């Protein structure tokens, strides 16, 4: 009988090396992208970035209106998606559970979770921009809400289904109606989980660009009026990164660094919170 051992060992070694190489490849990209962001972005960080408006080429400008605009639009998005997502997630985990309707909604939510954001943008354009005849930060907020709601629905449902049934039964046996069992017992038990979902939703909304092109449009002036077009960090990165002027390109990198730092720290923070929860169990 032929000795199979050296061949098997060799094949194993080759595949092991390939798996290591794949991991190195993935980490290399992360390093390259973060490195480029820090290399190009840190130099542009100054007080001006946070105190001055975006400016035409030749004038020293900052990103104040874009940063404020991003915060406002994200706040609008969250004000819609957080209650909507938590309530819908509650229905799936508490009332619907194994019902047919709940299964359909769960499926639809999963589709929305990975639906292309540009399609969502077009939908909101049809729904919130065309009828009113103009672009607005409100429409941008609605678009972000459509994108972030599925995230909150998903985490809320996942978290609530971790609550032991004995806890619910104990509360019910004291005579609490179902809604109070959910609000006073189940929500309390998963509070950190709900916050994790909201943080992930904020992280997703912060970096989202495509749907804002057709809804919020962008604005070079400072405005806090949500019924008009408003500037936003991702939009200004999109605009300035393609600009021929070095000072605008520099601001684009600085904006990119700010957005990435915000998104990554939010998602790391969310992960740490859910990890602590997991360890505490």
């Amino acid at each position, binding site marked *: 009988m032929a000795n199979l051992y050296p061949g098997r060992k060799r094949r194993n070694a080759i595949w092991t090396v390939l798996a290591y190489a794949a*991991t190195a490849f993935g980490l290399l990209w992360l390093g390259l992208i973060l490195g480029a962001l820090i290399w190009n972005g840190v130099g542009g960080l100054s007080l001006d970035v946070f105190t001055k408006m975006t400016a035409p080429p030749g004038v020293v400008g900052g990103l104040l209106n874009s940063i404020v605009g991003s915060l406002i639009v994200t706040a609008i998005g969250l004000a819609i998606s957080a209650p909507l997502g938590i309530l819908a997630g509650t229905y799936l985990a508490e009332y619907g559970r194994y019902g047919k309707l709940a299964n359909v909604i769960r499926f*639809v939510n999963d589709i929305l979770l990975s639906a292309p954001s*540009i399609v969502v943008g077009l*939908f909101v354009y049809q729904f919130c921009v065309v009828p009113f005849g103009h672009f607005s930060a409100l429409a941008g907020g609605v678009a972000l809400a459509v994108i972030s709601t599925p995230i909150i629905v998903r985490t809320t449902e996942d978290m609530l289904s971790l609550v032991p049934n004995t806890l619910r039964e104990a509360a019910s046996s004291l005579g609490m109606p179902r809604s109070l069992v959910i609000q006073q017992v189940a929500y309390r038990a998963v509070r950190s989980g709900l916050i994790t979902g909201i943080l992930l939703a904020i992280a997703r909304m912060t970096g989202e660009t495509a749907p804002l092109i057709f809804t919020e449009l962008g604005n070079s002036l400072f405005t806090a009026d949500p019924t008009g077009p408003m500037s936003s960090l991702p939009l200004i990165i*999109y605009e300035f990164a393609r600009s021929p002027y070095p000072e605008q390109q520099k601001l684009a990198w600085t904006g990119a660094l700010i957005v990435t730092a915000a*998104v*990554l720290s939010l998602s790391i923070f969310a992960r740490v919170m859910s990890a602590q929860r997991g360890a505490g169990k």
Partner: protein
Amino acid sequence: MTATSMPVTMSKTAPMDRAQALGRLKFADSSFRVMTLGAALVVLALLVGVAVSLFIGAWPAFSHFGIGFLFSDSWSPPKERFGAAAAIYGTVVTAIIAMVIGVPVGMGIAVFLTELCPPTLRRPIGIAIELLAGIPSIIYGIWGVYYFKPFMQAYLQPFLISTLGAIPGVGALFAGPPLGYGIFTAGLVLAVMILPFVTAISRDVFETVPTVLKEAAYGVGATTFEVVGSIVIPYTRVGVIGGVMLALGRALGETMAVTFVIGNATHISTSILSQGTTISAMIANQFADADPGLFTSSLLALGFILFIITFLVLAAARFMLSRLEVKAGR
């Protein structure tokens, strides 16, 4: 539990009639139920709303061009002649390039994390790969245009043109000048973007393999590669395919990164090194300049096509993943 957070209905109605208090409680109870049901129905309505509103917006283009809209590659705003073929072609080709590169590498990382990685490094490396998924698409775009595009132009594309481009037949795919921008560049950037999704899902499904199965294989002397190839992957095949489809859905709909590096040429070329466009890049790039009427409607029609394609892919992905969940639940 603090006094203020106790049910308001109870403490307020205590001196009142018991039946009245119970009535209020019942009302609050059922209205909460209705509210959650309403929110869940809104989620359902969103998906229906996306489909219906895009279809309404796309109707003028569909009725004007008919089925030919799908097969025409002319895109000429001044002549008001629009066709989706170039955009669909670019979308499919970039997604194929992304899958061919991203799936094996993503699965390789998942194998590394579940089978090979020292336990102390598992968490940090896992988080690092997940961070790759957290980086917003526009950041990939700006990075791609400032760093990756020049790299492609100076090194990888000339190399491909002089090697693969010289082979008769296949060479046509790698012909043309090294522009940096193009379908191939966009496909590579997409590959990196879908990596973390493939890794995350492969890792999740690999972990559903019962340890006894793996230990039994190791026990009869199988190597790590043999355990992965003969036990882990066959056991999780459906889930891995589901995860791959999910990543495909992402690749098809990705917008900002692609818009930056694909070159936005609205015609089909045989060479994958040449400039092209995708459905999402076309919409992002042209929507601002589009006149209301047939132009805007054609862009909405593209959006509707993209929605249908991704819906089918994602639905298939979910179907496969749910089959694995049933299996794991047993």
